[in-house]
């Protein structure tokens, strides 16, 4: 399905989501507020996005951006769902109840970014050891074991 068709389809069913939809680098992006994230994800699932491809986060200094990549087999389309949360209160609703695939992925985001997912059944560190201090993928992560690479460029 073309991205424009997807936009029309989405706007036809959920007119309230329509103004949040944009197209970046050929991908449909839906930016919602973090309170609405779970509802929007649930709506998209009802629309036919049955696969959760990826959950990740990006550290933008003041805010974290949560990025969900959803995919629909029936429509042959993919869409991004994005939500921003404040750095001081890194809490967002879990989508584990919609897609079990989110279980490990959200654990990974918790492990590396320290973002807490409300309603996650088993939120523990997954990649690092349980006694690890800090969240390595945050931009301000400090670790005296890191040796910075000299600047060659």
């Amino acid at each position, binding site marked *: 399905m073309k991205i424009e068709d997807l936009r029309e389809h989405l706007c036809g069913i959920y007119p309230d989501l329509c103004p949040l939809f944009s197209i970046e*680098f050929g991908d449909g992006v839906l930016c919602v507020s973090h309170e609405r994230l779970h509802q929007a994800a649930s709506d998209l699932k009802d629309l036919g996005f049955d696969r959760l491809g990826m959950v*990740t986060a990006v550290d933008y200094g003041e805010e974290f951006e949560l990025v969900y*990549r959803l995919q629909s*087999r029936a429509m042959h389309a993919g869409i991004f769902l994005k939500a921003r949360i404040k750095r001081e209160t890194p809490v967002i609703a879990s989508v584990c109840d919609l897609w*079990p695939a989110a*279980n490990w992925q959200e654990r990974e985001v918790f492990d590396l970014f320290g973002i807490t997912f409300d309603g996650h059944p088993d939120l523990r*560190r997954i990649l690092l050891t349980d006694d690890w201090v800090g969240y390595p993928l945050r931009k301000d992560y400090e670790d005296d074991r890191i040796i910075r690479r000299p600047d060659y460029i």
Partner: protein
Amino acid sequence: MTQTSTSDVTPDTAETQPTGTEPTETVMETVVNIGPSHPSTHGVCRVVVHLDGEVITHCEPIIGHLHRGIEKMAENRTYLQVVPLTDRLDYVGSMYANWAYCRAVERLAGIRVPERAEYIRVIVCELQRIASHMMGIGSTGADTGAFTAFMYTFAQREKVVELFELLCGARLTYNYVRPGGVSRDLPDGWVEQCRAFTAQHPSAMLEIDDLLLGNVIARARLKGVGVLTQVDAVAWGTSGPIARGSGVDWDLRRDDPYSVYPRFDFSVPLGDNGDSYDRARVRVWECVESCRIINQALDQLEPGSVQAEGLPRLLAPRPGDAYDHIESARGSLGVYLVSDGSPRLYRMKVRSPAFCNLAVLPLLAKGHTLSDLVVILGSLDPVFGEVDR
């Protein structure tokens, strides 16, 4: 390879604990720790298995023993310097990670890739699929006690590795697919050697299929073991042979076509029952289909340039984020890049198929015996470089 020899390496989980809190309950639960260094975990995976007798009541894979922080390292590298890092993600199929990353960079920077480079990418990646599946099928054999099949599949794998060695000089980590094309053109005589390989490979696969999957012992060990239903396969986000073994008709090469795949005629093998046997079978037939794709691509290969013209030495795409995915041997491998306009990446995230596929292990292993666990884990074919990144 005995399944009971566990190298318990952490003292805290190796104890046997009776958990019958109810006085009427007589079930004795045994906790067995497998790994992180165990011959049948295919890498450094630790699985804590709760057993009732010999039946698994619950199991939990503990991953991260190979977490090398590649995503963090990429944040201090230029776009070209990240390509060798992606080699080390999925070390059984390095070309895929190269390609997925390069596609994301090309999308971000708006690079058009010459047609010949696209064809070469398709050829090397289909060869890589064969090499990777040879590992997967072979280890299925090794897990079920048919070690001979591993020797047969590895002989085929060595042939592919030899082709790659001619191409880029390395046996495992190729660094071949680069943003804007591939690093160099095919050497003289390579096309003929590749044709010679694809000519003999389908018959070799038939032999392996007959030897391993036609074997009554392997069938008994694989059939009905680790059944993943179609609904679960979609809900848990599995992809690749795992999902297709469960009958999920989803292949990015056909359903979200990228590169020059729409020009090829190939079919997507599917399983019916979603058990370990079907997953192994899907891999066997995918290899044969890959040979078909390679032959068509070699036929359509035209002379031309293999690198996009006028690329700056230092890529600095405009700020934004891009995602692209390809169908790797393990499933849909995606790379998500964020650029802030500087020559360095702001963030790289690898959507690794093996990570998502491994998450279904507790679901599949429940109710099976401990000896079946290694078969199920082997049929998921995880590569821990990619699971842990």
